[in-house]
């Protein structure tokens, strides 16, 4: 009997429970995944547009989303923090034919730092 009660309770709990929504939201799946544009503040929208156009020349946005959400760079397994965002920015700036300017890299690094801060919020 106790087992049945517990089972029913668990079912009720699963019905009423709502998933915890952290600050960083993503839309789409797989190679269509991207950050939810609605969470990008107006002053970083330009950087977001740059990111959408330039970063996907070489890799999907899914890779960036995973890095921000998990705090781990998916390929190397290294921590993806603010120190890493600048290093990745420099790497992409130096990458042949990345077609990124310093100003663009700065803006994208700022955006990623913002997203990291947002993701860190409870």
């Amino acid at each position, binding site marked *: 009997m106790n087992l049945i009660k517990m089972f029913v309770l668990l079912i009720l709990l699963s019905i009423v429970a709502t*998933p915890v*929504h*952290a*600050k*960083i*939201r*993503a*839309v789409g*799946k*797989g190679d269509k*995944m991207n950050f939810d544009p609605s969470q990008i503040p107006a002053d970083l929208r330009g950087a977001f547009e740059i990111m959408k156009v330039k970063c996907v*020349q*070489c*890799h999907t946005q899914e890779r960036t*989303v*995973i890095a*921000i*959400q*998990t*705090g*781990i760079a*998916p*390929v*190397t*397994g*290294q*921590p993806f923090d603010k120190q890493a965002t*600048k*290093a*990745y*920015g*420099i*790497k992409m*700036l*130096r990458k*042949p*034919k990345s077609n990124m300017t*310093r100003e663009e*890299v*700065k803006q994208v*690094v700022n955006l990623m730092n913002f997203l990291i801060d947002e*993701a*860190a919020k409870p």
Partner: protein
Amino acid sequence: MHMYKQCLIAAVGFIILVSSNNAHAIPAFSREHNTECATCHTIFPELNEYGDVFLKNGFVWAKHKKEDQAAKPEIRGEGDPALLEKLKESAATGAAPKENGPVMSATHKSEPLWLAGLPQTVPLSISATLNAAYNDDAQYDNVDLSTRALSLLAGGVFRDKLGFFLKYNLYAEGEFVPAASNTPLNSDSPNAKDLEQFYLVWRNTLGTPINLKAGRFRPQLSLWQKSNKVSISDFATTSYRVGSSTFTTDSTADAIEANAVLFNRLYLAAGVVDRDGQDRNEGYGHISVKIGGSDFHAREPEMDLDNESIMDYLYLVVGGYGYTGRNSVSLASNERNNFYRAGVDLDLVVKSARLKLAWANGEDKNPDFSSHVKTPSDVFAAQGSYMVTKDFMALFRYEYQDIDGVTTERYIPTVSFSPLEIQNTKVTLEYQHAETENVTSNIALLGIRVAF
């Protein structure tokens, strides 16, 4: 005229023989680390600076430990629930309460596989090469079209401790002899070189920066090994031979090597080679230094993003090596050839442009295994390349070779295309103009290579 034709035939044979070789570019690494070929290669199999680090580090991404805190992934956010669930599972095995835990390199890490020390994927790849050669001066047949090489490749690392690499030639074209056949049969060993490479790397031996490598491999000598090139033909500095000796600095050999990255930008390697049929081992050493760019641990340089400087896009690697050894024509022969090779290489990269310089010097004391006539050799190569687009490279190489006073000059323009959409496929068009004494030869090569 007879010598002229012989030179042409030898040149074609040489090119075909060298073009069938390849190595470290293997899709098994892409699958294991869930990343694209361009992560490590310019146009495969030529390595970029990150691929070079991956190779030096025994097929493990360099780990940058933070002193104050360990990497503890915390799953946040939302998106694809299934993906996040996998990430949580991955983080559970990657959060590293255990030392040297698995790298969260993909979204499908398995704890049981990690506990067993197994790679997450079966680390096998196939590489195949089709070549077409056009020789206007050929004696019998101007066009030669046939499959040149089919190789089984494997590589990876067991629990970040023991790296391994294997290349088994399922098929390798033998020496091209137009008088016998346009499409020669698959050659038996040793030309087929079935097991071309198999070696293990004990990473960070006993907690030191030293990696111990043992097995059959190419000793670390020149920066420009045949596994690190875009063109079809190899650098003359690493592939030239003297007399009847089969030695080249790119030959694979049974060897033990110790190598290490020191001070982040200094790479040292030294090893001994055991050649069949002799009781004295051969020895070699290598040193290279990197200035600018990311270091040998793939750490990016500090850069002021507010001020432009050409130095931010430049890096230079200077390397030197030496090899001393001896060989013979057969196990039964008492005729030995004592020889040495020494060389200096330079790699200069500025944005999309790259300059490779190489100089090799050597001496063979009995290269025909009978006359004991010392034969000096000096070979120089210079190659400039430019990435026109992300998937298209144009390059030009000049080579000058002087072996005992017989000089050869080669002019080799090449273009290579590896489409971004299918980075495992490459098309290369190469033209060779060679002048030896008063004899010239012109050969065009088209190579198509796939790896999967």
